[in-house]
């Protein structure tokens, strides 16, 4: 039995998958399905749509595997497919909800911080893992779609500014200004949960 902890080199796995090795492709699916599903959930905000996006993304990736150039990371490549699939879902649902990633964006320079309060060094440790996930997810989901998509790709999926611009078909300055707004808005929203609780210091006594 091969050691299960050993992570095979990704380039080799992608190459095997391109040559028709089904096991190699399934290995790539397992490696990235969680991240792709998370991305799809954040963009579509709907579990059923996100499950569809997950499936469509990997089916499309398999179909077009020979078009994968290998000059970007495999992950970046499937993220682009997933973003396109998720945005298509949003457009289909556009009649019931305002969902365009270009709607609701204000052009004013309202980069302000509303609440200014210091946080502890690791404020998330005050909460359980589930609670932290819940807090983070609902904060992101409350952002307007244009900010949300940029934040998710840059700060959750950890794509570069250039990769994010490419995936969302935006200019680099647009990615940067949306990211700044998103980060400031999230900071404001999280301050409610994470701010330093001096007043509670005696609660334990």
């Amino acid at each position, binding site marked *: 039995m091969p050691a299960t902890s050993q992570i095979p080199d990704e380039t080799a796995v992608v190459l095997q998958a391109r040559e028709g090795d089904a096991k190699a492709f*399934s290995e790539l699916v397992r490696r990235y399905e969680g991240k792709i599903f*998370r991305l799809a959930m954040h963009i579509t905000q709907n579990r059923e749509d996100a499950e569809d996006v997950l*499936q469509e993304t990997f089916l499309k990736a398999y179909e077009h595997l020979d078009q994968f150039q290998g000059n970007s990371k495999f992950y970046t490549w499937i993220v682009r497919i997933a973003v396109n699939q998720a945005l298509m879902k949003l457009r289909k649902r556009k009649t019931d909800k305002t969902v365009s990633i270009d709607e609701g964006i204000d052009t004013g320079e309202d980069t302000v911080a509303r609440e200014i*309060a210091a946080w502890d060094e690791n404020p998330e440790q005050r909460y359980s893992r589930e609670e932290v996930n819940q807090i983070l997810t609902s904060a992101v989901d409350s952002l307007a779609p244009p900010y949300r998509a940029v934040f998710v790709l840059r700060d959750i999926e950890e794509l570069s500014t250039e990769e994010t611009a490419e995936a969302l078909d935006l200019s680099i300055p647009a990615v940067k200004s949306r990211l*700044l707004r998103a*980060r400031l808005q999230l900071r404001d929203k999280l301050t409610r949960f994470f701010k330093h609780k001096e007043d509670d210091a005696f609660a334990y006594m």
Partner: protein
Amino acid sequence: MLTCKEFLQELSDYLDESVDAEIRAKLEQHITECPNCWVVCDTVKKTIRIYKGMEPHPILPEVESRLLAALERKMAAHPK
């Protein structure tokens, strides 16, 4: 001397370490003099760090089985 507004405009690039040395020095000068901007800078930094540690959404086993079954069908129909 930067205003707070100018500081906030550059904050994201500063945290991504994509500002040049001259602006960087001005920003760092500003946070030593402005406690509010120091707090905003520190808490935005923490916001980014906490999100980076966020875990992926777990996939239900039946969703994964459906995905793998769909892939198998596709692979059988269109072998590479």
